[in-house]
């Protein structure tokens, strides 16, 4: 199984808040609606979103998210980074769109699961 660290390397992501980079990534959930993520994401998912506000961290903790990727060149709010560091949630950023990140992650996770 791929770790957050592998994904950071392979997708060239910026680490804005560092949690446990050795965490496994079991799958991926994409949504910008926190209630949707609360209802439908799974333990050890990587969460792809363009939301930058501190509530993202709370949802990630509750749902056991392995890491959050913020897309579209958006930077997490200072408060979000602070909270993430406190809670040991990894926050990553990318200049690419959600669609492109999703596409590349899908290829990575699918080939990773063949191993």
């Amino acid at each position: 199984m791929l770790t957050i660290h592998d994904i950071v390397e392979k997708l060239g992501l910026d680490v804005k808040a560092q949690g446990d980079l050795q965490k496994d990534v079991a799958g991926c959930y994409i949504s910008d609606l926190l209630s949707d993520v609360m209802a439908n994401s799974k333990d050890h998912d990587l969460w792809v979103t363009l939301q930058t506000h501190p509530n993202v961290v709370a949802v990630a903790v509750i749902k056991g998210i392995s890491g959050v990727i913020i897309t579209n060149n958006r930077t997490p709010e200072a408060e979000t980074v602070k909270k993430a560091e406190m809670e040991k949630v990894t926050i990553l950023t990318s200049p690419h769109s959600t669609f492109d990140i999703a596409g590349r992650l899908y290829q990575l996770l699918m080939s990773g699961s063949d191993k």
Partner: protein
Amino acid sequence: MELSGVVELVCGRIVVKEKDESFDITAVCTTDMMSDVLHFAKKGELLVTSLNQSQVIMTAEIADIPVVMVVLGKKIEKEMTAMAEKKHITLLSTELPMFTVCGMLYAKGLKSCVNGK
């Protein structure tokens, strides 16, 4: 990729049909935030979203996006269907999650809408 091909790929269904099955889809926008849809400098042909509200259709009309797909089998209320009919937006539904939909469309060579200026 043709509209019919997209529908088949995601095991989806056409809820409101305003385009031919052969309508060509090349660029995709994936988001739940409406201002993000309105941020795209170049229009795409397909918006993939988990929001199941009429607002999405209104936004698609303003942003010139002719096809909207609602993922994860979110229930499409009749207000949204009526709005799609009124605005001539093709509305699709799939049980698959956003990640799988995007992954499969990306693998077929579809591109992301271009962001920014």
